[in-house]
């Protein structure tokens, strides 16, 4: 039994030690740093490409083998990194269980006088020669005025005063440690009971599942339809101002939520599942339609929709028209030729063919340039190409998030108490002709306070 106890003690002391905590700080930091350098990708190509910058291709392949052996390309989810985080949590728990009871006990037990040898070893010491009968009362008064809790002891060296203030703030360290555990617990709950995925929905269509990061389909239990997606640009520039999706939720064939607008930084939550605007892209589909507004001679507006190469009639005329070309970002190069700058809808334009009595003319109409709307057959504004873009949504359900928020708040509170409201401890020995101040912590602030206290006691004397 004795041997087992000894081993138990050893294991316990190992996990309770600050040395382990410090070692874990360093190892986790180095591990995490490696992960920011080596590409984090399950596919081998990016990793090999990265190493081939420094070495030959064959060595790069060997390097990849080592990398994948230790999961360095999926480092933050690897068994060893998870193990380190687990050790970190265990260290925090054992450390706290090891130290907290004795701290709590020290609040309850009545203080005892400290032997002079221990006081003499304290880093802060200052002595003043003074000869006054009432000095003891005065020192006590000064401490009390500053909000200290005082204990007095008669010792052979004189009267020992122990003055304490804010001693309970020593508990804040444990609050900070607890907050880290709460955050880790929140993260675990998120991993086991939540999911992350993405969905690309083309304008005018809907999806009832998301694709997880591993490529699996996750059914949502309802359908998300994208009515429209748009990118708003700053005036006269290609810098995007906002990405916006207009969504609708359909459950059991019935629309239950309509007119939902999501943007970056403005997500939307339904039944615990949150949708974030993440990306977008150009994807022409069969149902895509060109939308125009025609202004007739009386100034009346007619809305027109037409598919690619589908003929439409210009209202109140005998003219037929159809679209034969489209450019999401029409530009003009130095030689005056038209070209497409991007697949983003920065400057959408259509090439429209007009047909009147067998005679054909064609014209580019740019949605952002009103001069191009004027045609020989009236003013025709090109509004948009609808159904040719998809919105990329990030989908998430994470029941651990409330814990993360609670943990974060507790951590901030704990740290502020820890570092801004440190406990103050003074020991004073008042003997016949001198008083000596001691303090166990070597802080400039405390030294200054001793000076202040000394000044006040002296001031009282004068």
């Amino acid at each position: 039994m004795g041997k087992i106890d000894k081993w138990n003690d050893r294991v316990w002391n190992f996990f309770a030690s600050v040395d382990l905590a410090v070692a874990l700080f360093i190892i986790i930091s180095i591990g995490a740093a490696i992960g920011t350098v080596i590409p984090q990708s399950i596919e081998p190509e990016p990793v090999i490409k990265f190493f081939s910058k420094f070495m030959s291709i064959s060595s790069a392949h060997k390097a990849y083998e080592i990398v994948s052996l230790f999961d360095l390309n999926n480092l933050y989810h690897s068994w060893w990194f998870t193990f380190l985080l687990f050790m970190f949590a265990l260290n925090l728990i054992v450390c706290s269980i090891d130290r907290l009871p004795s701290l709590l006990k020290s609040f309850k037990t009545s203080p005892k006088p400290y032997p002079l040898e221990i006081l003499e070893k304290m880093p802060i010491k200052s002595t003043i020669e003074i000869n006054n009968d009432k000095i003891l009362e005065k020192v006590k008064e000064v401490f009390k005025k500053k909000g200290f809790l005082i204990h007095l002891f008669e010792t052979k060296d004189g009267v020992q005063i122990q003055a304490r203030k804010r001693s309970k703030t020593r508990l804040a360290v444990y609050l900070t440690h607890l907050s880290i555990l709460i955050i880790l617990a929140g993260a675990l709950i998120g991993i086991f009971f939540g999911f992350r995925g993405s969905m690309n929905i083309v304008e005018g269509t809907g999806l009832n599942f998301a694709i997880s990061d591993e490529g699996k389909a996750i059914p949502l239990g309802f359908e998300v339809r994208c009515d429209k997606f748009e990118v708003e640009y700053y005036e006269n520039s290609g810098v995007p101002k906002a990405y916006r999706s207009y969504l609708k939720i359909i459950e059991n064939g019935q629309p239950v939520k309509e007119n939902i607008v999501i943007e970056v930084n403005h997500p939307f939550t339904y039944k615990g599942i949150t949708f974030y605007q993440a990306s977008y892209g150009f994807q022409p589909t069969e149902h895509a339609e060109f939308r125009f507004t025609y202004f007739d001679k009386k100034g009346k507006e007619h809305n027109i929709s037409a598919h690619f190469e589908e003929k439409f009639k210009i209202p109140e005329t005998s003219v037929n028209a159809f679209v034969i070309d489209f450019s999401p970002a029409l530009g003009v190069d130095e030689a005056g030729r038209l070209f497409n700058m991007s697949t983003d809808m920065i400057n959408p334009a259509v090439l429209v063919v007009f047909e009147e009595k067998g005679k054909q003319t064609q014209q580019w109409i740019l949605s952002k340039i009103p001069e191009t709307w004027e045609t020989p057959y009236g003013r025709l504004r090109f509004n948009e190409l609808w159904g040719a873009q998809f919105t990329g949504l990030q989908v998430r359900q994470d029941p651990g998030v409330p814990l993360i928020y609670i943990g974060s708040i507790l951590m901030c509170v704990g740290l502020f108490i820890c570092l801004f409201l440190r406990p103050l401890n003074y020991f004073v020995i008042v003997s016949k002709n001198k008083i000596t101040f001691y303090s166990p912590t070597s802080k400039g602030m405390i030294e200054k306070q001793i000076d202040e206290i000394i000044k006040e006691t002296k001031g009282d004397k004068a």
Partner: protein
Amino acid sequence: MSYQIISIAGLLYIIAMPIYIVYMLTKNKKLGFAATGMIFSGALIHIYGFIQRFKEMYSINHSFMRSIPITNLYESLVFFVLCIVLGYLFIEWKYKNKTFGVFVSIIAGITIGITDLLGITKEVQPLVPALKSNWLLAHVTLSFIAYAAFAISFITALIHIIMGTENKKSFKYIFSTSALGFMFFMFVSVILDVVTSSNPKSVKIFHSTLGNPSIGISLFSWLALFGTIFLFWGLSNRIIKIFENFKITPQFLEDVTYKAIAFGFPIFTIGGLVFGAIWADQAWGRYWGWDPKETWSLITWFVYAFYLHAKFIKGWKGTKTSMIAVIGFLVTMFTYLGVNLFLSGLHSYGSM
């Protein structure tokens, strides 16, 4: 334009540096006032430039919370320097001690000078959708205040190591004197770079010295660099004597280092990590994603947590803890600049 105003502030910081040095050598009080006045007026002009830029941003974004001009590398460097200078002026006033002014003016001068040399854009840019959030103000401002606090702890820790180490051949001593020597050389080099640059767009850092096309000048610069470092290594005990004249004790330096970290650490935790996580949660749908910026922030946090545990639980004292503070700031600088320059990630608006 706001950046021209800020350049004037940078010039004043640079001029303050030699005045601080002469003040320290002569102990002439008038020079001390002149040096402080120089930095102080630099700070005032700097604040004025910052407000001007705020207005320029506001005229584009029309939102107070989203117009804080810390949205690209140039603006962040400018704000970082402002925080350091204001922090230093507070310390100078509180402790009635002007001795750190030399180092602060070196760091401020280098940083403002660098903004001229890296070819980074100084124009006011409209916000990309990812930055359009009310968390921008809190997250970025607090992060940089914490960085500035760490910078001040770096300065005091560096002097502390030089003062508190007797063995000139120890790693700590060689490391910190070389760091000082390199900073001094860089300060001079950046000034030369700015002065000799004909076309601001094509200028590169160290182009007038180490990277000069003329092999002679380049070689001479390298020799000068090693000479400076050797000089700092050899003469640091004399420099220490100067500090002792100003009643700077190792105890005092250790204390200021601790206070700067004790101030910066909670600010960094709340502003950098917690607010950053909340913002990431709202913008990207995850509070933590091991993005390089996030990861390096965590590493920074670990280093300073190490500092606090070493000091309070393990009872480390003296230059050992200051060494952690120095490493902490180097890691902080990598988190701030290195991640954007060398690694790719989601905080790319901080890149050039």
